[in-house]
């Protein structure tokens, strides 16, 4: 199973019709500022707005509505072929597989916050899996925190360095990447987030995700990457994938984004 040649891909598209061709669009939220990531999980458009995950141990995302997903194809394997988009603002757009979400982390008080996340539904070895906070209630103080207890890709207990929210007044839907301990190349599960300086008013989802591809977009100009010959990426879309979007902003104006993802399986 899987593609053994470029001709295999042509055959899958043309003869077998094993193509997933999805056109998406999102009215993204106002983001924090240039250089900060914003989540489009809750943005209206196509697919529609996502909902909050469950509180600890959270939600394992598996073909969840509001994500971009194709039907399961096991034992065959599905791969992304192209990813393109146009945005009303300059930005960089990331496509990622949303794996785990744990809602309701109160950043406005100090101490350990229980995460105790569910097991990964995909990328179960944890390699390349990343963690982020997705702000659901904006803060009025930056705060300082660390992922103080988690399991890395070697099944070892680990603790990350401290980090802060990008600003005292952090906007809703800001996406804050969480640093892991030096040497860790992924995360399987998280136990606690320690808040050493409170981010007043802030509440966040804890997210585990796998970045797949990122493209730069100049305002109102389509950009598209081939993921086979232009970038030898062929990102695997595992059964149950739950693709979502985040963007790295160049300003605070809310962008509208339209895009297209093609994938095929064999």
């Amino acid at each position: 199973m899987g593609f053994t040649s470029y001709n295999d891909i042509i055959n899958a598209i043309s003869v077998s019709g094993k193509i997933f061709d999805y056109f998406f669009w999102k009215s993204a939220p106002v983001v924090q500022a240039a250089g900060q990531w914003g989540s489009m999980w809750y943005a209206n458009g196509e697919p529609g707005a996502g909902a909050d995950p469950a509180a600890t141990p959270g939600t394992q995302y598996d073909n969840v509505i509001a994500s971009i997903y194709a039907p399961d194809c096991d034992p065959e394997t599905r791969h992304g072929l192209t990813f393109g988009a146009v945005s009303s603002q300059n930005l960089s757009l990331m496509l990622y597989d949303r794996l785990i979400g744990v809602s309701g982390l109160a950043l406005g008080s100090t101490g350990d916050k229980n995460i105790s996340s569910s097991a990964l539904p995909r990328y179960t070895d944890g390699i390349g899996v990343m963690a982020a906070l997705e702000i659901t209630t904006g803060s009025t103080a930056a705060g300082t925190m660390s992922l103080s207890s988690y399991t890395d890709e070697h099944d070892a207990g680990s603790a990350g360095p401290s980090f802060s929210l990008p600003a005292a007044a952090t906007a809703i839907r800001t996406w804050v990447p969480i640093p892991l301990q030096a040497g860790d190349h992924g995360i399987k599960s998280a136990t606690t987030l320690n808040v050493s300086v409170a981010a007043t008013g802030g509440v966040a989802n804890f997210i585990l995700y796998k970045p797949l591809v990122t493209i730069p977009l100049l305002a109102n100009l389509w950009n598209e990457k081939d993921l086979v010959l232009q970038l030898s990426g062929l990102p695997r879309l595992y059964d149950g994938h739950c693709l979502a979007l985040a963007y790295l902003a160049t300003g605070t104006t809310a962008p509208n984004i339209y895009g297209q993802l093609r994938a095929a399986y064999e």
Partner: protein
Amino acid sequence: MAGFTSYNDILAAIVANQVITGEATFPGGDEPFTLFKSGPTCQGAGTWMSLWYATGFPAAGVSPAVTPGTAYDDTAGGILFQPDQSPLIKHLLSWGAHSSVQASYLLYDRLVGVAGVALAAPGNQTIESVALPRYTDGIGVCAALEISTPSTAAGTFSLNSYTNEHDAESAGPSFSLPAAVTVLRAWIPVPLKAGDHGIKHASTINMSVVATAAVCTFVLYKPLAVLALPTSCWNEKDLVLQLAALPCIYDGATLALLQMPTATTATTFWSQLRAAYN
């Protein structure tokens, strides 16, 4: 076996003249389908505009019928890759274009149009669209409003009754026009319910806040490819090796264009498409 099994198959098809020029009376040949359009004055940067009614080659399309509307099938005004080749399969191989103003262009298959949907009247407006002529499973089919009489006040709407790709009744969230005063031919994507990956049929659209004076055509369409064009600079994409896309062109396809402008300036557009079948 219908379809291309390899790149060599594509080369063999081209050499064997299994290419489409877009001229129904002259199938085959090695010339690409060349077209041009003079677009409308645009709403502004970031708002899609329809070129369906734009003059040029192919000539301007006409308004579809009112409910249940028009199912587009090799319809005049579209970019037509005739004649039909079933059971063989047609694919786009390349798409290039030039625009007098920097913009992005979307090539789509226009499936169904229902004219005369009044956005200025409160409550439910009937659409009751005809059956899809292609992509009949509804997967990947999108909906849009194509402004045929501009508004003088922004409204709020929702596609409150439609049939999704699973033959289930569904209702989409609310959305608004891009501005209080919209321009003729503005194209407003209609959001579907979260989880729906397509639409087969639309029943009604609900106006919770009316868009004074506005009338639109309700359109069901399938996006195929998008191209970015810097001002007066040709750009072309190979859709086989540069992008692993090979968009399929079904018999009866009525291809048309949308423009994502960077300004309000009306734009002239030149383009070439290559397609082959096997």
